């Protein structure tokens, strides 16, 4: 990847105390924050800031092709690195184009800071050229936002913006920068620390609550750890692993929790919820204690809320007090940083005798595994499985929204925190390509793979130009079924198969990639999949594109229809053939006669039970 920034680093300290414009202060402040990369797009109201970037920058600025791409790239960067992502845009349409990305970051608690240009203060409210009240527009979708009205407040505001974005329950912060304020001069002094009387996120859990939780845990016979993105956000995967192992407690994760607990471990039950595994949803239904860790009882997880883990006592650990008792009443809420609270709990809990419980779950895993069979056409599930085999889990996989997203969640084997990035809460189609680009700018140690459907890919495909320009070494995989597959699935299952505007006319994706300057191949046969993935993974020096043409009408199973209970769960229609090769709970592929057996033994299987 090429860096357009100067390699010579200037010392920011040298300019301290000097009279500087707002624009210069802006750039200096970002350097003080340790910002490495800005995703942005210039314009009239922000032109002064862009001028300051010419001389002052130690920061890599990436010119996206649409401001939505900038916010998603900032999200991808933040999710992959744990550091706040930064977007810089102009006023009016530049700012309003960031709205979807900001809303996405808000729903998924991703720390990003968006800086928007604004018309000069005296023109605000005058319907000036490219004026939009972006502070008003983004108020309900930011953790907090600011309009800087005086250059003397600028450095402190930027400091506060980063602090608010990354602490507590992380989230997006927008800072609106009027053009005239950025031209004013003042001395630059970046605040060393920040203290806000109105914002003090909790760290430690209340010891009395932690003791109550420990007592419930020590008394439980059929516990389940229900783990969300909060574990990854607070870097608590090790603490979670230690707790689960000590207790012998099975673990199920939400979509955003994937990677927080290795799915190669016997205790893993994979994902729960609408498209979760049969056995994880069943285990939650049968458990006597549900320990929710950094998860928020989203409706895609709970289905009908009154019936969700109805028999179980519930513990809820979350940093956000408002997430507690919002959807589900719990017995022991603990407000605090997940990692801190898990450490507090560690010394108070005893190993449990869960052998019978785990044996029951193993039985469920063998009776209702995630599975599919090859028909006459290539199936997306197989493609995903093969991607998993190729990476060994050592990659950052960024998905879009829809069927491919659920199949990736199900059929890829997640072992590392921050290896899975997706748009969960808002469900933003078009997320994957720019978010994967952002992840690749932050993480050069691992391959980055973008997986989209044919619909979502076309929502932000303009960023192909950015990716090629910067020779971002990404793998861009499009799972093409010629449909808006998830909507089609719902129309098939719940709307009497009356397909309404879900079939897509598509361009020639490989030619399109080539037009952007990205090499690519099209895969239509089972036999071509492994080779194409290998070619992509071995490609260096820039992006590589693969289109997988898969079965047009295929459904994601298991499925709990929206608002229903585990009793209404639709399991995969394919029969379970047995006895199986591979370990219990392993994803199982049934091959048609004559097909070469592969994919069945995933890379991570260290010991296989005999058939």
């Amino acid at each position, binding site marked *: 990847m090429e860096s357009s920034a100067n390699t010579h680093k200037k010392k920011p300290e040298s300019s301290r105390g000097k009279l500087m414009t707002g624009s210069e202060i802006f750039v200096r402040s970002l350097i003080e924050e340790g910002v490495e990369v800005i995703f942005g797009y210039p314009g009239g109201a922000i032109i002064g800031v862009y001028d300051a970037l010419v001389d002052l920058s130690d920061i890599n600025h990436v010119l996206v092709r649409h401001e939505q791409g900038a916010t998603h790239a900032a999200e991808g960067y933040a999710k992959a690195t744990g550091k706040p992502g930064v977007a810089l845009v102009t006023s009016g349409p530049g700012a309003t184009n960031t709205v979807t990305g900001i809303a996405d970051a808000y729903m998924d608690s991703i720390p990003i800071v968006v800086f928007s240009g604004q018309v000069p203060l005296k023109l605000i409210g005058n319907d000036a050229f490219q004026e939009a009240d972006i502070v*008003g527009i983004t*108020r309900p979708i930011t*953790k907090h936002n600011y*309009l800087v009205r005086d250059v003397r407040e600028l450095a402190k505001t930027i400091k506060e913006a980063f602090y608010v974005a990354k602490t507590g329950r992380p989230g997006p912060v927008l800072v609106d920068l009027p053009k005239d304020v950025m031209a004013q001069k003042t001395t630059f002094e970046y605040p060393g620390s920040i203290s806000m009387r*109105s*914002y003090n996120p909790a760290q430690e859990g209340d010891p009395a609550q932690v003791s109550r939780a420990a007592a419930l845990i020590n008394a439980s016979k059929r516990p389940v750890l229900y783990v969300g993105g909060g574990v990854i956000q607070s870097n608590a995967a090790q603490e979670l692993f230690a707790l689960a192992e000590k207790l012998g407690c099975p673990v199920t994760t939400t979509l955003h929790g994937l990677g927080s607990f290795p799915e190669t471990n016997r205790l893993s039950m994979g994902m729960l919820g609408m498209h979760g595994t049969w056995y994880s949803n069943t285990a939650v239904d049968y458990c006597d204690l549900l320990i929710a860790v950094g998860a928020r009882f989203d409706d895609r997880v709970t289905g009908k809320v009154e019936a969700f883990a109805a028999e179980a006592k519930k513990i809820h650990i979350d940093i956000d*007090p*408002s997430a*507690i008792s919002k959807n589900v009443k719990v017995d022991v809420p603990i407000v605090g940083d997940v990692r801190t609270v898990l450490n507090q709990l560690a010394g108070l809990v005893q190993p449990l005798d869960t052998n019978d419980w785990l044996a029951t779950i193993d039985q469920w895993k063998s009776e209702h595994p995630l599975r599919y069979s090859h028909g006459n056409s290539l199936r997306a599930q197989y493609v995903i499985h093969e991607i998993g085999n190729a990476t060994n889990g050592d990659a950052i996989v960024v998905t879009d929204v829809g069927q491919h997203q659920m199949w990736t969640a199900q059929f890829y084997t997640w072992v590392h925190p921050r290896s899975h990035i997706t748009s969960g809460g808002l469900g933003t189609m078009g997320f994957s390509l720019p978010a994967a680009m952002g992840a690749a700018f932050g993480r050069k140690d691992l391959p980055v793979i973008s997986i989209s459907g044919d619909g979502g890919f076309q929502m932000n495909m303009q960023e192909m130009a950015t990716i090629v320009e910067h020779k971002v070494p990404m793998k861009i995989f499009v799972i093409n079924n010629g449909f808006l597959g998830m909507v089609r699935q719902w129309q098939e299952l719940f709307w009497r198969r009356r397909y309404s505007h879900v079939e897509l006319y598509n361009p020639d994706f490989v030619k399109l990639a080539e037009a952007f300057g990205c090499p690519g191949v099209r895969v239509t046969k089972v036999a071509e999949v492994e080779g194409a993935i290998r070619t992509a993974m071995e490609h260096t020096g820039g992006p590589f594109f693969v289109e997988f043409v898969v079965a047009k009408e295929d459904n994601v199973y298991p499925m709990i229809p929206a608002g229903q209970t585990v009793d209404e769960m639709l399991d995969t229609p394919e029969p379970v053939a047995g006895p199986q090769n591979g370990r219990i709970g392993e994803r199982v592929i049934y091959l048609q006669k004559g097909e070469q057996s592969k994919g069945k033994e995933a890379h991570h299987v260290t010991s296989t039970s005999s058939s």
Partner: protein
Amino acid sequence: MSQVQVAHSEHLPGSDSESTKRHTISLQVENKFGAFNRIAGLFAAKGYNIESLTVGPTTDEGVSGMTIVTRGDDNVIEQIMKQLTKLIDTVKVVDLTFDSFVERELVLIKVQSTAASRSEIMQTAEIFRAKVVDISQNTLTLEATGSQQKVGAIIKMLQPFGIKEIARTGRVALKREFQGEV
């Protein structure tokens, strides 16, 4: 900062139902640009009911005081309290409902009057310790202060004379220093 009353029209007629109760919430917020909008916007976005919302300065010039009267069942009120606390500009939130607190509302009432009815109106005003603040050939304008019940009562007593206009501040409240019976 001026006193504001918003969304009185959102007040649904009728008394407390079985599950929803009226709550008086006192909060202190950083006196910053848009702070009021954040509070009002939160109630709109989450679909919470507002009966009245007043804003005014406090002893700390960096902090504004607000009194919000809202209604909801226990879960809704719990979420309102948490969501208000979650706002970055919020310094302090207190649900006064279960404490002993003083609440007052000011109302201006313009009543139709004739020579014949004027003295009766003024008698009524006196019972409520209301003041006459404007007079014309056909109207009397009264100023009354008190609890919500008192303000409601004077309005009811004046209705037979014909009320032309009403302006109400909405309620302001402070927790009593002596809790319990005074």
